[in-house]
């Protein structure tokens, strides 16, 4: 009897099950994740090597736009403060720009709308595989960072958001290359209309050379930091913290 059981076990583990169960237990091992994740460093290095700092993502014509732009992630930020701001058209909203800057800023939405802006029709690529093309208008992030004056120690720009999954707030971060990229804007309009609530009103980051989860919605505060280690889960973004997603989402 014991022989039969062990034989069955042996056959089971020698089959395709070996690979499958092996990959599953390996997928849960921190060391294996670390080794597999080394490819992320390689991908980022390779892409940065062939990608100029200011090389633009393709921009499309109005005729190329999706008729229906899929809403994904949080459709709203479910806090009393956010509901109040939404109800009065974000009249008392102030974007905070702080952290490692010389002059922390608090900018009302009306003031942001009066600043030089950029309009771009770009393709939004979700990590899940779908794409949608839409038009975005907003303030170049570089303009705000220059107005605030980044200190030399600043390495990353963090987007703090009003939305959350359960009790965990959403946030995202990029390095200064993507933060200063000409197409990186804080969008306050989509397809010619004020940014609708499900798409991240009042402000949504557009990081056009990376995947959708980097494009933080409901942005309340932009913070310059030297390291991502001390923030939230320490990996630079909500999905990076909770779900093993890559911080560099260029692919």
């Amino acid at each position, binding site marked *: 009897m014991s022989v039969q059981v062990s034989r069955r076990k042996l056959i089971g583990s020698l089959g395709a099950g070996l690979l499958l169960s092996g990959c599953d237990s390996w997928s849960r091992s921190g060391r294996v994740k670390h080794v597999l994740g080394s490819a992320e460093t390689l991908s980022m290095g390779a892409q940065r090597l062939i990608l100029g700092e200011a090389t633009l993502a*393709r921009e499309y014509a109005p005729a190329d736009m999706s008729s229906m732009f899929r809403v994904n992630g949080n459709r709203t930020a479910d806090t009393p403060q956010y509901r109040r701001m939404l109800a009065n058209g974000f009249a008392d909203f102030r974007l905070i720009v702080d952290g490692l800057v010389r002059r922390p800023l608090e900018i009302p939405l009306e003031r942001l709308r009066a600043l030089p802006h950029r309009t771009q029709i770009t393709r939004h690529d979700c990590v899940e595989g779908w794409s949608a093309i839409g038009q975005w208008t907003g303030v170049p992030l570089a303009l705000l960072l220059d107005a605030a004056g980044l200190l030399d120690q600043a390495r990353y720009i963090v987007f703090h958001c009003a939305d959350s999954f359960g009790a965990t707030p959403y946030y995202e971060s990029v390095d200064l290359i993507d933060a200063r990229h000409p197409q990186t804007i804080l969008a306050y309009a989509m397809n010619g209309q004020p940014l609708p609530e499900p798409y991240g009103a009042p402000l949504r980051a557009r990081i056009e050379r990376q995947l959708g989860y980097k494009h933080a919605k409901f942005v309340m505060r932009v913070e310059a930091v030297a390291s991502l280690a001390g923030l939230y889960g320490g990996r630079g973004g909500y999905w990076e913290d909770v779900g093993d997603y890559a911080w560099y989402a260029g692919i």
Partner: protein
Amino acid sequence: MAGGEPASGAPASPGDLVRRHRLSTRLWHWTNVVAVVVLLMSGLSIFNAHPRLYWGEYGANADAAWLQIGGEGERGFVQIGNTRIATTGVLGRWTDENGRTSTRAFPSWATIPGYYSLAMGRLWHFFFAWVLVIAGLAYWLTSFVNRHVQRDLAPTRAELAPRHLWQDIRDHARLRFPTGAAALRYNVLQKVSYLAVLFVLLPLIVLTGLTMSPAMDAAWPWLLDVFGGRQSARSLHFIAAWLLVGFIIVHIVMVVLAGPVNEIRSMITGRFRLPGTSEEARLT
């Protein structure tokens, strides 16, 4: 093929153990066995995150998909255009080894990891994508330098004559395999399929994969023009992966029919026993 000289230097005859596959070919073959299996299964994991395929630049749930795998009620289905094929139990609705029912597209036995995790699927996929690309480029380079491509893989003009091609197709259909020294050279159907995989299918898979990357599209916008947009590239990537599966199935069937022990040994040690008559060949 490493040239096929028998160890003694005398002309090869049936029964001789001769050198067949170079080290570079053997290394690449087994690296690819691991890389392609992991890439395919982790690719199916990634597909499960959005089991719909489109043509053009964009495509999401509100847009028309040319292929969709899903579950509706108690049934699983694959829909191609307007045609629905019932796939309950295998695709779109299936039960895992713990008895749990899922409406994901591909079942847990076909994906890496076996549980649903897009992030882990991507970690496995991109790690082994680098393995495939680095090994593939190294093999390309080596195979031109050591003239494997020019000497063993390039078909001769005589082989490409319709009559010869037809004869080769008939021989394959009758499962009539070459014996003696003739078994050392690739036949023309082998040459054409190996060249197609090496220089068409694998580059297509890599380039359509890169076209799904927003950063690569910024760096090389011609990728979008070549493949007709990001969603077309995603569809072509999926199709090319299944063409590669088709090649692998035929390849394994041919290995089994031609004498699996001898064939697999020649891909491990490089040594191949020349088949004699069909009876002798079966004994190897």
